[in-house]
């Protein structure tokens, strides 16, 4: 086991050097370093450090994005090796994230997605301007625990309300935690539209999601309302 190589991967990820991460992960795999070890000790640890740096204001959004890209490149190499039965990696949960229909703001959502990855979640980012029905389809298809929706436009909040209504109508409301955030929302507004969770900042979102998913998993997913 070459610890230096793991440190090199971690450092390259922290500095967003995604090509180096790709090269070094390949090198580590050739040297028979267990893929789970690369994942846990280099990639996830590196992303955790990036998350801490973001919270402390030491890095910019683009730094976080470049590290997330490095994580993605590393994962692309590792995932096929650990997705065999009995070898699945342990994740805290699966999260689907999107900016709601008619809204194209994506910066806050990207930060939350990167920090969730750092926390050990699998994140499916659907991008911006995503219709409620598409969010539901993808949530079902990917069997996620939590749907996170971002909204910066006051007049787009109604589409989040639609999403929650559609989930209820289709008797899927208790299958997913619905978390909301973004400048257009407040705690009161999120309660009014029936969301389960609201956070004002990305850091708060991670904390709240950690707690909620823990509770959610403890009580087990319910099928119906």
């Amino acid at each position: 086991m070459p610890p230096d190589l793991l440190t090199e991967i971690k450092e390259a990820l922290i500095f967003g050097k995604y090509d180096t991460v790709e090269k070094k992960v390949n090198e580590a795999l050739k040297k028979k370093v267990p893929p789970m070890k690369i994942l846990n000790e280099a990639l996830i640890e590196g992303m955790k450090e990036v998350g801490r740096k973001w919270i402390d204001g030491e890095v910019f959004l683009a730094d976080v994005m470049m590290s997330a890209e490095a994580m993605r490149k590393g994962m692309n190499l590792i995932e096929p090796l650990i997705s065999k039965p009995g070898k699945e990696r342990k994740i805290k949960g699966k999260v689907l994230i999107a900016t709601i229909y008619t809204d194209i703001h994506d910066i806050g959502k990207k930060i939350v997605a990167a920090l969730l990855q750092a926390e050990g979640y699998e994140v499916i980012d659907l991008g911006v301007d995503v219709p409620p029905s598409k969010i539901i389809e993808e949530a079902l298809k990917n069997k996620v625990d939590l749907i996170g929706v971002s909204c910066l436009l006051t007049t787009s909040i109604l589409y989040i309300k639609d999403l929650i209504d559609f989930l209820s109508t289709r008797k899927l409301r208790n299958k997913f935690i619905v978390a909301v955030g973004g400048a257009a929302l407040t705690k009161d507004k999120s309660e009014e539209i029936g969301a389960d969770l609201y956070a004002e900042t990305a850091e708060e979102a991670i904390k709240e999601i950690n707690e909620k998913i823990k509770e959610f998993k403890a009580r087990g997913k319910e099928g119906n309302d």
Partner: protein
Amino acid sequence: MIDPWEIIGRGEEGPHIPEKEFDMNLFKKLASLEKEYEIKFNGEPLLQDKQMINSIYEAGLELAVETGFYLLDTQRRILFTEDEIKYYLSKSKKKLVLGEGKEAEELVKREINDKKPPLLIAGMAGTPLPERDFFIKSAMSYVKEEVVKGLDHGSITSVEGREVRTGSPLEIHATRREITWLREALQRVGRPGLHLLDGESSITSKGVLSVLSPNYLRKTDAYFVPVLNEMKTDYVRLSKALAGTEYGCLIASLVDPILGGYSRGPEGTAICSIAELILSKIIYQANYFLLHPSDIRVKSTTTPQCTWVLGAVGQAISKNTDLLVFADVWVTSGAGTETVFQEIVPNTLVATYSSLHLLGPVTACGLLPNGTGLEARYMGEIAETTAKKQLKPEIINEVASRYLNLYINKLSSPDLGISFKGLYNMEKVTPRKEYLNTFVANFEKFKKEIGIHD
């Protein structure tokens, strides 16, 4: 002026690049420009280094040429050569008229430390506002202020008891209603010709295009077209610019780089601002510009870094172009608080010195309708006093730093203050006595800070 079809054409034929790659390239390019041009924020609110001011402009021009604007719909870059950019910039007008009749105001290019005070456009821009009476009266509170020469008020989120949703036909109704109410506010105060900076109740092009008529937005008003973060645009914004240009009203371009985002820190944000100002001049055919460097965490323009960007960009633009630029000031504190009066000062001092005009202050960062005309009066009076006294940059830095120290630790959990209704007599549309006293005390304090003793 470049014809709009040429711009659309370049957006449909320019080099393709995936959006993610464009973002990453921009980030890397900014990092290398900061280094190459030796641009460094030294912690002072006002940049005094003349060489660095020029370097910021040169770096911004280089970025504009190399990167261009990204058109989201086609995933292509809209590019211009340096000669083209310089040619179009040379055609900028140093003077414009805003508004009409007896309210017509000349918007003139200001120089660094100009004795001419900045022109002030005010209102609760970007703020969702409630029902008719509140909307009109709060608009009137700004229009009643002599220092205010234009109005940029908030949006209506419901009409006829129905909530407006983005893209619905109600956007048309809401935007038309909003402009009608704004014009009613102007008439009731006796300033019917005052300049309006667009309606804000429509996100898509539906509502905004529906007010291009003399019954709503006049040709002496402005259409507001934002640059998307960072260095991007889309067909909605281009449609708006094209329709506004053909109609013949003014076009105001919003340049609002996010400090801490893709434009990096203060240095990169300053470079990016220059490039966005230059390119939006050409691509949107903009007549005037709103410069709004906001902090990714606290959302306001009032951090030391954002204040520095306002000053650096204002001076760099004034020295190298004739663009007419406003500092778009957003404060975290709401009306009715002591901190709102503190938070307004550094941006106003630095912007006024650095040749900018002023827009704002938007209180509580537009989250709540906690704003009044009195904060605009305060900002206007400070700007006028600063300009007339032609304060030295060292004094600006000293006073701005003292004010920054008063509120810097409160930015992440600001006091959002009190609603307009709680601070004004709603019948007479006048500030309540206690609030007026707070204003007077704070203005007196400011005058002492800059050495004026009555």
